[in-house]
């Protein structure tokens, strides 16, 4: 039975890596969906009604069921649509994917962007601290085409939406070379591999527009 587009709705924001990764998952599984772009400053009554706890994107609505928090949404999508699996079956591999995904969003994201933009201890120190975190990811992807192995998986969607197609555009605007090829050959190879994938290319924010957007975000974060 074909999925009707109205069965799945996604409330998202064009520059949000959290909503972009959900789009990647839906496209990877060939799930048709209706996309509702949200104004994250002047939040719509619909967004506030569907996500009263966090008032954030992404929000997925599937046959009337409402889900939010991108990791939760990705796992749900993986369980409903079984083709092109995202999470590993093996309990240990799954635990590792979940662990590193949490690390990317909770540690790497804030340290490699907010702390650097604020640069309270000086920008060189902030960059060094961020690079120590990237070293862990460098190790994780060594010898593999993707974090998920031969095909993209959960961690690729999380780290992919966050690092090359969000944080990197922020670094560009700040004039920072955070993960240079000579220091991070494996991560750079992984990024090249990601760019080869059509569904990834279809789900990333336009480069110039995002660089401008991230510059504005930096302005808001920087200490006065």
């Amino acid at each position, binding site marked *: 039975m074909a999925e009707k587009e109205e069965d799945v709705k996604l409330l998202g924001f064009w520059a949000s890596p959290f909503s972009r990764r959900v789009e990647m998952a839906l496209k990877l599984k060939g799930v048709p969906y209706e996309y509702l772009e949200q104004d994250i400053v002047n939040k719509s009554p619909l967004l506030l009604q569907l996500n009263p*706890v966090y008032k954030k994107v992404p929000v997925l609505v599937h046959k009337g069921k409402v889900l939010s*928090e991108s990791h939760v*949404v990705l*796992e749900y999508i993986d369980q409903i649509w079984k083709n092109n699996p995202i999470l590993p079956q093996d309990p*240990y591999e*799954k635990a590792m994917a979940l*662990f590193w995904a*949490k690390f990317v969003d909770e540690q790497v994201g804030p340290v490699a962007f907010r702390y650097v933009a604020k640069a309270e201890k000086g920008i060189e120190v902030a960059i060094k601290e961020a690079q120590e975190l990237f070293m862990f990811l460098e190790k994780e992807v060594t010898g593999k085409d993707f974090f998920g192995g031969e095909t993209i998986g959960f961690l690729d969607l999380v780290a992919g939406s966050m690092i090359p197609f969000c944080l990197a555009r922020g670094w560009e605007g700040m004039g920072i070379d955070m993960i240079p090829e000579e220091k991070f050959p494996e991560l750079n190879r992984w990024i090249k591999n990601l760019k080869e994938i059509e569904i990834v290319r279809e789900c990333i924010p336009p480069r110039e527009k995002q660089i401008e957007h991230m510059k504005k975000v930096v302005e808001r974060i920087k200490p006065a």
Partner: protein
Amino acid sequence: MARSDVKLIGAWASPFVMRPRIALNLKSVPYEFLQETFGSKSELLLKSNPVHKKIPVLLHGDKPVCESNIIVEYIDDTWSSSGPSMLPSDPYDRAMARFWAAYIDEKWFVALKSFLKAGGEEEKKAVIAQLEEGNAFLEKAFIDCSKGKPFFNGDNIGYLDIALGCFLAWLRVTELAVSHKILDEAKTPSLSKWAENFCNDPAVKPVMPETAKLAEFAKKIFPKPQA
């Protein structure tokens, strides 16, 4: 199966460490408990969790698993044939369990912790408001998830029960320290009944710290806030 096949690095007072301990009890998995000394970190901990250097860490054979909720899920997946499932099989119910577990760590527990450190009346009022909002969310979540059964997970305690229940001893200690009832039967009757059932569960009782002992420990690690 050799007892030494499963080790857990942790500490008696940590609610996060309680989570995998309850899970291992539910699955009847014998394990060696490696207690960390408060204030210092063992070589084994630093080697097993180089990213965060935090407890709990589960060592299954030579494989370390970190992050308490991830460990609980790993235990459920690995020993799936032993004991009831800790997560619902329905994808939406499963998603709700994960959603609320993440909320508890990101919002609810953060508010609880800040209560112990809160200084003036204004700060206390703000924290109380946050906790009351959180409790209201969790009361509703309990009604939705439990579907009339005693636990979030239904007839038996599971992932979400463990995610919230691990904080009940600290909750009691905080209530005593600030002289304020945080979990109020009048406001959250279902949650309060659940808390009682959770604490009486045989998988929980052996690892739930005594309130008095925890209160003493809390005095050591949380300096008295300025009035």
